[in-house]
């Protein structure tokens, strides 16, 4: 045969065989073989001409390329096997839906709860705020040195001094909370808003959605009749009408032209307790602001200069605070300035709770992983026979491991998908339970970042869950599985021990979470039993501000007294009073001040005794049910013509006079801007001011008639639900004071309860996680006990045949379970003690290692565990002796 013909045959064979090579490698493969063939021919031809023999030899080699191509094809199919494995896994799950549902549910709970918590972490701590360079925006607060966490606003005079001295901020601007009375038609409406000083919108770095923000010359008298609306106000009150920009509206009786509408994302909630503000107008500084140093009711917002850190700004403000304290010791000694980033402020008190809940949910996830691992192990040994068969007919160990991992992955992916629903639910529950004043929570959602997190989590979980059973299976090559005596395989015993380890781990983790939940529950019930020192039940609170337009200070006091008289006549009302500050209704401007006790040496600046100073009408005390302990109450006779009279709280009396009576002593202090020199006429009970878990601060009360103010809260004790009386009370105020809107109404009981929201929030979630954990652990115990009991069926049958009775077998199984539970609880107790330490700052009235809580949770978990063991044990007692005989 011609050498050319043989060569053509070779080339054709190569092209044919190349079809076997995976498409992705085909061209390269063909090139390599053709090059080798071509090269060989060229060389041989050049040397001494091609012989037919040599051409045949080359053809033979070309045919050998088949093995090469087949090898490549096998390699490729093995990689494609992953898809095949997952399909096979899904098929197996369909064949065993009960098992599939159980594992998927357990994983969905674990992954879902974790993702849900992450969505909250994302909203609070990760997500970008809708402002320019938000990390540079800071809020500034004054706070007492003794309790820097009790942040307060800033007084106008202090703010002006800060602004004159500060170097580290690009902008420093103030917002004065202000209630605008908006009139359109007959009914005056109250719209909370702020007077803002120059640079307010620039500090946030936000432009108006429509129109513009204020120009620099609009912060001047005569030019300041302009307003910017929030998106909320614009939609609710002005029907989202764009034509509003440029129109004139009446605010506080004055025409203001609307220059702009802010975007919906602009929500500068400053002090967390303040409600959303809907209108901004320019602040014009007057002479009066330079003198107000004691009333801290401004919000200060700043923008750090580029490159300046928050620590640098804080240390600058520490210096400013020191200088001001020396300059104005009466108002500024013992005060610090807190510089807080906007993000930290928005996350508020939730940050420590979220940290803790993240820990709790991590424990829950671990339990879910241990639980699923056990279920997978159980299934792997149930499939021992199938795996042994596949092994025997040539599947290699790695291939089987890969297949098991792919199956776990299928389960985990399903768990993740279902988990997204759980996560969505968890997120919603958290938002609905969370204290209402955490602005950042509104942004909780399942965004791309959160979903990515859950996908990554799923992969990790799948690996953790799949790796142990897969490794076990790869070791399972013995013929014992094939012969059907799987349960007698020597390897089975350690495998059961492994499974017991996972159950013990679940029990220990569940006990840790349960004890945490127990401690929080005990704290909460302790708090509920704590009396605030007054009776909040049936009390309505109505806040009003009477301005100078309503008359002189004395005239305003008369109006307030008239309003009290009118409200007293409303059916169902038992007592009415008014005070400048009431507990649990966070009103700025009222509050603590320095007190001078006459006849005592003047203490060093900063060491003056402080107290909550409240201006109150005589009716305030009976309305609140604050008890009189010594002397007399304030009365109608304590008016402007008489010597000023003061009441002090028990805490104040004890601090300064010990057990002696303070009656007749004289105090000097400032109440609502009025200097007061009063004689102590009585001692009243202590009342909590802001939280049930904080000690009641010392308090001083002075009569409204002797220290007039227009900013008061009416407290009305009713014989029924205060909400029912509110409309009648409001209409009395409206009838007497037509131009004065009621700024805020509330039930005092709700106000007190709302301070427990943060705790209730944590408690609910923590307990929910703990209950889930216990449920998962119980299913774990049940599962393992069932398998153990089934594997000992023959043994039990034999024992029955030899004369053991039912109770004896029950005891045997229960003993085995009790062992696991006891070890789990012993390890869990260690975890519980650590949990107590972690929780310490959240506890109230209960020690971190409270023995009763520990005992209770141990008993509860043991009981649940015992029930979980009992069912398999009961089944074991029903084994007939015939079973043993039959199987031999």
């Amino acid at each position, binding site marked *: 045969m011609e050498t050319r013909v043989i060569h053509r045959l070779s080339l054709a064979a190569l092209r044919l065989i190349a079809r076997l090579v995976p498409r992705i490698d085909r061209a390269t493969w063909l*090139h*390599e073989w*053709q*090059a*080798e063939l*071509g*090269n*060989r021919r*060229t*060389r*041989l031809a050049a040397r001494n001409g091609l012989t037919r023999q040599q051409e045949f030899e080359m053809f033979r*080699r*070309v045919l*050998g*390329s*088949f*093995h*090469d191509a087949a*090898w*490549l094809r096998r*390699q490729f199919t093995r990689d494609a096997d992953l898809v095949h494995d997952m399909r096979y896994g899904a098929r197996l799950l369909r064949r065993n839906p009960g098992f599939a549902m159980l594992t998927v549910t357990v994983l969905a709970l674990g992954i879902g709860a974790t993702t849900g918590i992450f969505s909250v972490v994302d909203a609070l701590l990760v997500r970008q705020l809708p402002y320019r360079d938000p990390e540079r925006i800071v809020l500034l607060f004054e706070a007492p040195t003794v309790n820097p966490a009790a942040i307060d606003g800033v007084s106008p005079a202090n703010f002006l001094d800060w602004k004159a001295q500060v170097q580290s901020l690009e902008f420093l601007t103030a917002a004065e909370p202000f209630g605008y009375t908006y009139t359109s038609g007959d009914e005056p409406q109250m719209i909370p808003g702020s007077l803002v000083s120059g640079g307010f919108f620039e500090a946030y770095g936000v432009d108006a959605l429509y129109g513009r923000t204020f120009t620099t010359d609009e912060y001047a008298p005569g030019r300041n009749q302009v307003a910017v609306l929030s998106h909320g106000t614009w939609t609710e009150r002005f029907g989202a009408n764009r034509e509003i920009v440029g129109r004139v509206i009446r605010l506080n009786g004055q025409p203001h032209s609307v220059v702009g509408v802010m975007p919906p994302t602009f929500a500068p909630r400053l002090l967390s307790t303040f409600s959303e503000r809907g209108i901004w107008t320019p602040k014009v500084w007057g002479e009066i602001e330079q003198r107000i140093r004691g009333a801290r009711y401004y919000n200060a917002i700043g923008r750090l200069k580029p490159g300046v850190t928050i620590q640098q700004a804080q240390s600058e403000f520490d210096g400013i605070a020191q200088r001001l304290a020396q300059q104005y010791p009466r108002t500024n000694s013992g005060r610090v300035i807190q510089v807080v980033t906007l993000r930290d402020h928005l996350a508020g008190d939730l940050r420590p709770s979220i940290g803790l809940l993240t820990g709790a949910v991590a424990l829950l996830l671990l339990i879910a992983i241990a639980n699923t691992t056990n279920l997978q192990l159980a299934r792997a040994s149930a499939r021992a026979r199938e795996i042994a068969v596949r092994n025997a007919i040539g599947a290699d160990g790695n291939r089987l491991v890969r297949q098991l991992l792919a199956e776990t992955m299928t389960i985990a992916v399903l768990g993740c998908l279902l988990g997204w629903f759980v996560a969505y639910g968890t997120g919603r529950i958290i938002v609905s339970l969370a204290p209402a004043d955490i602005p950042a929570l509104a942004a909780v959602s399942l965004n791309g970042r959160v979903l990515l997190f859950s996908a990554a989590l799923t992969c990790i979980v799948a690996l953790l869950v799949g790796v142990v059973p897969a490794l076990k299976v790869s070791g399972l090559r013995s013929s014992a599985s094939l012969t059907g005596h799987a349960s007698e395989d020597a390897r089975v015993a350690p495998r059961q021990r492994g499974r017991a380890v996972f159950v013990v781990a679940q029990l220990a983790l569940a006990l840790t979470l349960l004890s945490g939940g127990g401690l929080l529950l005990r704290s909460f019930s302790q708090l509920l039993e704590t009396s605030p020192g007054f009776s909040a039940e049936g009390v309505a609170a109505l806040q009003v501000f009477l301005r100078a337009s309503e008359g002189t200070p004395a005239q305003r006091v008369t109006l307030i007294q008239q309003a009290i008289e009118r409200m007293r006549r409303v059916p169902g009302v038992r007592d009415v009073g008014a005070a400048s500050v009431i507990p649990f209704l966070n009103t700025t401007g009222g509050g603590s001040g320095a007190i001078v006790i006459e006849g005592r040496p003047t203490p060093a600046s900063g060491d003056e005794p402080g107290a909550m100073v409240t201006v109150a009408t005589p009716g305030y005390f009976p309305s609140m049910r604050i008890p009189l302990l010594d002397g007399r109450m304030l009365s109608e006779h304590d008016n402007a013509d008489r010597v000023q009279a003061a009441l002090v709280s028990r805490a104040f009396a004890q601090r300064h006079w010990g057990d002696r009576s303070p009656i007749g002593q004289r105090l000097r202090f400032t109440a609502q801007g009025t200097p007061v020199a009063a004689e102590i006429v009585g001692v009243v009970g202590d009342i909590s001011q802001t939280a049930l878990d904080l000690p009641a601060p010392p308090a001083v009360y002075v009569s409204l008639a002797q220290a007039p103010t227009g900013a008061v809260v009416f407290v009305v004790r009713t014989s029924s639900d205060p909400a029912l009386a509110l409309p009648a009370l409001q209409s009395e105020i409206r009838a007497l004071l037509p131009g004065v809107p009621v700024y805020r109404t509330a039930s005092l009981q709700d106000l007190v309860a709302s301070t427990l929201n943060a705790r209730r929030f944590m408690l609910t979630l923590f307990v929910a996680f703990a209950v889930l954990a216990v449920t998962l652990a119980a299913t774990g115990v049940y599962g393992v006990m069932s398998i153990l009991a089934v594997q000992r069926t023959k043994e039990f049958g034999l024992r029955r045949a030899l004369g053991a009775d039912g109770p004896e077998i029950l005891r045997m199984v229960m003993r085995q379970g009790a062992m696991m539970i006891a070890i789990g609880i012993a390890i869990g107790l260690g975890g519980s003690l650590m949990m107590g330490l972690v929780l310490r700052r959240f506890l109230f009235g209960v020690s971190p290692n409270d023995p009763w809580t520990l005992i209770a949770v141990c008993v509860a978990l043991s009981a649940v565990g015992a029930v979980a063991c009992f069912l398999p044990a009961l089944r074991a007692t029903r084994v007939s002796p015939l079973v043993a005989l039959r199987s031999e």
Partner: protein
Amino acid sequence: MTYQTALVLEALDAGRHHGWDIMDATDLPSGTVYPILRRIEEKGLVRARWERESEARREQRPTRRYYELTPAGVAQLGEARARFRAMTALGARMQRRWKPA
């Protein structure tokens, strides 16, 4: 490691860098040599690349696939030599017999 794999490593060490040259040196059929090359390439014992175009053009032939031992491959060969002692002599013979086909 199989004896055949060791032979292929030895051939590579002896300067045979192309598939067919390795077959010549080892007397192994193509259906054995190539899968071995693929496997040891996957394990990182050899590195494969295409010859430079200029090199091939100078010799007026298509560019060939060029295989060479990696440091790991050299180490592996050392182990193989210790295991298959007869191979050392074989390697020496390969070196002697070597003339480009």
